[in-house]
């Protein structure tokens, strides 16, 4: 396993777990204590960081174009591919969530608005998992080139 693979493996485990724990705790705090700044901030942080973290490598590359190389063209391409694959899985997740809700509650059933934030947190966790899994696989395929 090369260094890039190790990094994506660590991110694959840590990022979804971080988003899941932070987001769920924030939602539980809102349920039990009402809407306050800290849980809302935690929830927003989990969503924004989890959903837009894939923009970081291209942005860093653009900012440091004339300076020291942070990530090369191949890294950016790998993370972009990961983001595209994760967005495809995201749609499948939401389609499945709709079907499961329909299946359990019936066509005339109702779903609590309190479930929606948890569905979104699940989406962020799955998104991160797929994104870094794809990166891990791609680094594995061409891993020997940069060693």
């Amino acid at each position, binding site marked *: 396993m090369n260094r890039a693979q190790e990094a994506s493996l660590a991110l694959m485990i840590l990022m979804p777990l971080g988003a899941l724990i932070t987001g769920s705790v924030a939602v539980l705090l809102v349920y039990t204590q009402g809407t306050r700044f800290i849980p809302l901030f935690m929830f927003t942080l989990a969503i924004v960081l989890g*959903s837009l973290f894939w923009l970081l490598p291209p942005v860093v590359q653009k900012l440091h174009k004339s300076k020291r190389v942070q990530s090369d063209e191949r890294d950016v391409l790998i993370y972009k591919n990961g983001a595209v694959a994760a967005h495809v899985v995201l749609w499948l997740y*939401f*389609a499945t969530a709709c079907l499961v809700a329909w299946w359990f*509650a019936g066509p005339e*059933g*109702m*779903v*609590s608005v*309190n479930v929606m934030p948890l569905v*979104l947190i699940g989406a962020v966790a799955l998104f991160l998992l797929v994104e870094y899994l794809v990166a891990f696989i791609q680094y594995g395929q061409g891993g020997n080139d940069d060693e």
Partner: protein
Amino acid sequence: MNRTQKCAWFTLGISSLLILFLAFVLRSMFVPGDRMAGVGLVMSWLWLILLFMVGSLFLVFYRQSQAEPAADERDRLIKRNAVLASFIGVWILLAMETVLPRRLAGDAGSIPVAALPIINTAILFTAMLVYSVAVLVQYGRGVENEQ
């Protein structure tokens, strides 16, 4: 106007029509006694969308002249940027999907299960709308060629 621009106009038109259609269907779910009243209107909407699709697809694939350019590297760059914009749009819309029902229905509120697929499909079409607007805006601005 090249094929990418034509496709963007087509996507803009079809996604706007579909969003309007879904908004109409969603509205009918929350108005008592209105759910079945709209069946005839739904059929006319579907005819309208079908006619628009047939007409637009003809225009997209019809070459105005032999000089009409095919897609080049610049088109691919424009499309890639537009896809990134639509991905960011998807996450903003998903976050809104979580927050808005809670705001509208209250903490203990609930929404019909049947509304979920409609809302998610509307988000998909809005992402398409963002994509096409991003393409057209980039062509309008002339796309900074230094990229």
